[in-house]
């Protein structure tokens, strides 16, 4: 590695780590204002989210849906499409799988049942993006708004499905039938981590390779970089828009399937982890780069799992993690701006 390469690598690393550090510091100030000890909080988060074996396994397990969602977001964002409807796509697919899986395993072996669930989840997610995709492709309707609306709609529809057609009558709270533990995704070795982690990692890496190395990825990137140039180059903009949306939302759906089949086994009414809106900033922070996404998602999963323990133990509700993500994005924006200004001054 030459000195110049090393320098640019270090510069890139600093540009990423600086906002993280600043966000943690600003978060510490907020904790102080709320009368909590920031060192104790962060220490506890790291201890319970990263250092304890059960915590670490829980953190890795949490990365499964987050990474799969992130993979989908990379496709959409690189194609210049703002798929902000991930939460609806995720939840609807998760609910459909939660209802389908227990029924399927009674009539067929587990492996084909799980494969069918994956396909269904992908299809449900993709289907839920079809209206925004067509509106964008045909009429140029801003997809931010339409995907958000479909997301709210999807979350409510998922609840309706849980409460009426998919309700398990044997339970008191409305929820879907429970998938027996032995029929869920296999765990890795002696750990509690479902093998879905391998699928999630593969999804991110495949998406990364697809965007960087295949002609479809190249076309999508052109659409994202300059739609007019894409049209002049003879690309079918409408079809590419629908394809990008379908891939993105399909992966969000797959994330739902992995979460249900690997972790929960059932879904209760009003459960909405809202992973999507939290993953969006992380994908940004990683500059749509698959490898960096893996690192950021893991960091965030540790924060979430540790934060959940800290909420019970130290009385800092997990809303604090929302604030941290917001701070992270704002400081990311600030460092980005300062960096650009420095570069333009240097004339690079």
């Amino acid at each position: 590695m030459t000195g110049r390469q090393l320098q640019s690598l270090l510069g890139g690393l600093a540009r990423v780590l600086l906002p993280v550090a600043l966000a943690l510091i600003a978060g510490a100030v907020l904790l102080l204002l709320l009368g909590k000890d920031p060192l104790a909080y962060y220490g506890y988060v790291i201890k319970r989210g990263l250092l304890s074996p059960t915590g670490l396994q829980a953190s890795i397990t949490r990365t499964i849906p987050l990474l799969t969602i992130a993979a989908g977001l990379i496709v959409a964002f690189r194609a210049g499409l703002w798929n902000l409807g991930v939460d609806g796509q995720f939840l609807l697919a998760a609910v459909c799988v939660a209802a389908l899986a227990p029924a399927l395993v009674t009539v067929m072996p587990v492996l084909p049942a799980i494969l069918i669930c994956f396909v269904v989840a992908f299809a449900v997610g993709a289907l839920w993006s079809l209206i925004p995709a067509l509106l964008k492709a045909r009429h140029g309707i801003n997809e931010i708004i339409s995907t958000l609306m479909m997301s709210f709609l999807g979350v409510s529809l998922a609840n309706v499905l849980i409460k009426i057609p998919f309700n398990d009558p044997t339970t008191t709270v409305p929820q879907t039938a429970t998938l027996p533990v032995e029929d869920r995704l296999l765990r890795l070795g002696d750990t509690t981590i479902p093998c879905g982690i391998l699928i999630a990692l593969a999804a991110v890496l495949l998406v990364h390779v697809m965007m960087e190395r295949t002609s479809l990825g190249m076309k999508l990137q052109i659409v994202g970089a300059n739609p007019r140039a894409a049209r002049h180059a003879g690309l079918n903009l409408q079809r590419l828009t629908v394809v990008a949306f379908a891939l993105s939302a399909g992966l969000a759906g797959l994330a739902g399937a992995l979460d249900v089949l690997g972790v929960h086994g059932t879904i209760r009414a009003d459960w909405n982890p809202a992973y999507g809106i939290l993953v969006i900033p992380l994908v940004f922070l990683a500059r749509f780069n698959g490898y960096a996404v893996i690192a950021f998602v893991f960091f965030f999963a540790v924060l979430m799992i540790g934060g959940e323990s800290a909420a019970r133990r130290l009385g800092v509700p997990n809303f604090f993690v929302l604030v941290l993500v917001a701070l992270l994005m704002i400081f990311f924006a600030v460092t980005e701006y300062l960096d650009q200004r420095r570069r333009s001054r240097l004339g690079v």
Partner: protein
Amino acid sequence: MEALFTETFIAAFIFGAVTAGIPLLLAGLGEQVSEKAGVLNIGLEGMMLVGAYVGFVVAYLADSFFLGFLAGGLAGLATALIMVLLCVYWSMNQIVVGIAITLGAEGLTALHHHFQFARSYPRLPKAETLAIPGLSELPYVGEALFHRNGLVYLAIALAFGLLWVFRRSQFGLNLQAAGDKPAALDAAGVSVKGTRSAAVLITGFLAGTGGAYMSTVGAGLFLPFMTGGAGFIAIVLAMLARGHPLWVLFGAFLFGASLALTTALQVAGINIPTDVIQMLPFAMVILVLIVFARHSYLPPALGLPYHRGER
């Protein structure tokens, strides 16, 4: 079913539609100002939440709805300052910053609520109302429309006020130019950044008052995440209104009506899961987008930062 058509039911329904519509109206008008000037404000939901929280706290401590309303607006304006700095001056991506503002506002208000009120859940007294002589005596609509808190009339008047600003004032023209052809505005010697900053601050203020109305006059209490997507609906309203404030007014009450249907149907004893009814406003947006797909209008320079001399 007869219960649906009694005077009490209809009056309660219209009352609820107005209560739910006013925050949408205020925030939607605010968003319209930003969009006209070329700034897409995805942080609207966050600005509403901050306004809702601060508005509630001030109304509760100062025992004044008006002060709460005002404080909510100022809190929204302060939140909008982040957007002004990052998006207008530093040209950061408006969508990323907007999401950050919404997430941060959700987290911060929920946290503060947890530490201050989670045990007591204080409530405000019922807001005082102002009866318009004569009109408030009308059957069905009288109580619901003409016997309301003064802020209701203020919000409705604002729609007409904005109409005047957009059509007749220099500032309105500047806003339009900042969204349609910022370079032309710059050439005319008016600061694009200044115009856009003013627009975003106005948006923040109005969104804040919308949130404050929701928590003080509307609900009488603050709940975490209480805006529940109203900010996003307001963005859609502004988008579909094609720069016309009176369409925001119409749309806000239409959506308010679909929100109010939840409670109204429960009052009438019709048992549908609330989720079904909660889908109504969003389904309506999608339907409207599909039907009027070709008619929604956004300024050409929307979402794009302005750099002098760049083409």
